[in-house]
């Protein structure tokens, strides 16, 4: 055989193995258990399940989604920490779980380095939202009402947000009645039913705001909200903390790097495609994908854990 053919065949063979290897750097040794830290049926839960479903179709993997709710994601994290680090168990939560919640619960004995970040999927469009029937056009109207003696019920869905609501009141010289409920849907229901006057909502308010039933009074992020860019951010209202954060997939510490990379890549591809089911949901409900991976993600989780000490201290004063 002429040597040129030999080279070509060898080259083709190499190419074939290379693309083959790229398509499946890593295949899970069995079905993957997906621990979801959110209540079944909510937006976050749907996001997790749709991503799992799409990966099943695309890669032929098998996911077993399972609810592990409670304690701001710490229930899920505790289960994940004990799970085998071979890629067969992953979890979905929010970055807050690994920051504020782990810092606030030293008894639980968990820190971000017990986990391996896989990828973030989306941020929140976290707003301070009231029903338009309250008649408040801006956050100033609400503060004025509070100063006028009207008790304001402020719905929050996590201890970190309760602290931020408290600091917002403190900065503006008013006291809110801060009511903790479970999940963003419960805040939305409470505001709609009149049980709550105002509350934090992380994207679920979008349709209501568009229809004119709800008002984004302020952005609880470090940046303005996409839907209501004119609403002031917390920083301009005198609060030096914000509720920035993302949904993320994590595994237990020590998960093989090729498993992390393969999963991170597959998830990122799925959610970046606005035509796919999870991509469409993320675009619609959470303002588009936010993808942070690898060392950058691990560093961000560690930083969130460290900086939460400051918020805990500020809120306890």
């Amino acid at each position: 055989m002429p040597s040129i053919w030999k080279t070509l065949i060898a080259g083709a063979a190499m190419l074939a193995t290379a693309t083959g290897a790229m398509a499946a750097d890593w295949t899970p040794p069995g079905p993957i258990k997906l621990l979801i830290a959110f209540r079944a049926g909510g937006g976050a839960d749907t996001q997790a399940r749709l991503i799992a479903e799409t990966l099943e179709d695309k890669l032929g993997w098998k996911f077993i989604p399972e609810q592990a709710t409670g304690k701001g994601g710490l229930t899920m994290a505790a289960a994940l920490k004990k799970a085998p680090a071979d890629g067969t168990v992953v979890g979905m939560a929010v970055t807050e779980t690994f920051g504020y919640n782990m810092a606030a619960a030293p008894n639980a004995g968990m820190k971000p380095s017990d986990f391996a970040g896989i990828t973030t999927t989306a941020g929140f469009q976290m707003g301070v939202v009231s029903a338009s029937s309250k008649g408040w056009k801006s956050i100033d109207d609400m503060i004025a009402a509070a100063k006028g003696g009207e008790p304001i019920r402020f719905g929050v869905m996590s201890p970190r947000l309760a602290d931020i609501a408290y600091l917002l009141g403190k900065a503006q010289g008013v006291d809110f009645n801060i009511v903790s409920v479970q999940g963003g849907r419960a805040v939305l229901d409470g505001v709609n039913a009149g049980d709550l006057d105002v509350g934090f909502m992380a994207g679920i308010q979008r349709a209501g705001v568009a229809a004119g039933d709800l008002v984004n009074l302020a952005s609880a992020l470090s940046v303005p909200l996409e839907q209501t860019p004119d609403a002031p951010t917390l920083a301009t209202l005198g609060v030096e903390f914000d509720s920035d954060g993302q949904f993320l997939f994590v595994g237990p510490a020590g998960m093989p790097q090729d498993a992390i990379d393969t999963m991170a890549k597959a998830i990122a591809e799925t959610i970046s495609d606005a035509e796919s089911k999870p991509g469409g949901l993320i675009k619609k409900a959470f303002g588009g994908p936010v993808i942070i991976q690898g060392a950058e993600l691990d560093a961000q989780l560690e930083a969130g854990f460290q900086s939460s000490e400051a918020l805990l201290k500020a809120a306890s004063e």
Partner: protein
Amino acid sequence: MGTLDYIWLGILAVFQGPEFVSLAGISISVTLAMIFFGFLLGVAVGATPGLAGPIAMAISLPILISIFGFTPDALLPVLGFLIGIMKGATIGGAVPAILFNTPGTPDAFMTTLDGHPMARRGLGGKALRVAHFSSVTGDTFSDIVLIICAPFLALLVEGYLDLPEKAALLILSMSFIAAAVGGSLAKGLISTGLGLLAAYVGTGQDFYPRLSIGNEALSEGFPLASTVLGVLIVGAVLHELALYWRRRDDGTAGTVMETEANQRLSLREIGRLMPYIGRSAVVGTMIGALPGIGSTLAATIGYTVGKRRYQKVRKDDALDFGEGVPEGVAATEAANSSVSGANLIPVLSLGIPGNAAAVFLILAAESIGGFTPGPSVFKFTTDQVNPELVIAFGLFTCMFLANLMNWTIGGVFMRAMAVMTRIPKQVLLPVVLLLTLTAIYVQETAMAAVWFTLGFGVLGYLMRVLAISPLPFVIAFILGGRLEDTSRQAFAATGGDPWFLVSSPVSIAFMALTAIVVVAAIRRGRTD
């Protein structure tokens, strides 16, 4: 999106779901097929002494969830199956009561009083027809009341009740259940208290899992399915086995006699029965709407009311109640069947379950997700579809389809189920136990859940031995989390007012009613 659009969407959701089979070009949806299978199973378990609708619902639920998954699409097929069981079991219970003098379900005990004497006189077939007709009439009436009342009650609750009033209403409901179920207030309260205690293990807002004594398995709390199935099903099986062990020498002789040629029900006879069926349906529906009282009391009251009327109109030479008159069967069966629809009024409008069947419907909705029974379901949003409301109307459609099956083919299946009475208990009970534990493991995939189930089974057994009803335990366990959340929220929302439970006229009224319920139960206990 008007009300009619929602009703139409609900009906479509049942008929248009994924196809199960296509018969002669007509597509049968999975939901429709599941209602049918559930209905068949319901008739069979209702007719089997020692089994009842709730047991079948409990065992099928985890299996159904593992088949259909946790997506909102699973809601209607799974709930349809459970509703089918619920409806089928209401007619099945009368079969062994009439033919063998052993009630298939506890609420069919009064049916034996007249049904069995009728069978002994050779009118077994007729007694079954009376039972079937009365059951289905009462049930349908109750469903109509449910569909009319539930949305209005829900809107009323959502419109007028604030957080403190909602907390007071939960306290009132639990006290009412504790006082109404079983004979003694103290036992009811013990049962409720234990349920709350179990609900508070490992839960709460604090990041530290409370009451878990450092145990990892306890730190996530008791799984809902383990607790409910353990106390209700495993406890009942253990209790039945113990009874069987003691009484295994007793044999019950069967008497299926159809000597009379005419076993059919004429229109004239139906006309004669209607006053009894009507009264009992109203009694059963009213009792059903109150959480916790249940169908056995409804049957007793229906029978008593019927008896009183019968003695006024009876000719001197005619048979009396208790000697085998169709009116007695009709009064009992209409009353115990009309409980089931009305029992869903507090479930759908308040999220408060009133009996074991309702407990399993809530368990199904909570496990699958995407449908939270309670006042928020009935939000008639116009700008976008409220999917929970569509599911609610889908449920109503399922109920009417099951009723339709009851009307059309129920009688035939019911009479064919006499054979179920022959299944020996020593075979049946271990099978139920094994199925329950398997079902739990399928759903929870952890051995800890199986141990919890067995533990709660022992608790359920001891409660039965001590004549403590396990129903308040289960209902308190389900409502415990909500009671805590609502109370915390009401406390926070009122700016930390410790008197939030007596801060408005409505909440004061609820708390006063709570006190009255408790005092009345104590007084009743003294006079008994």
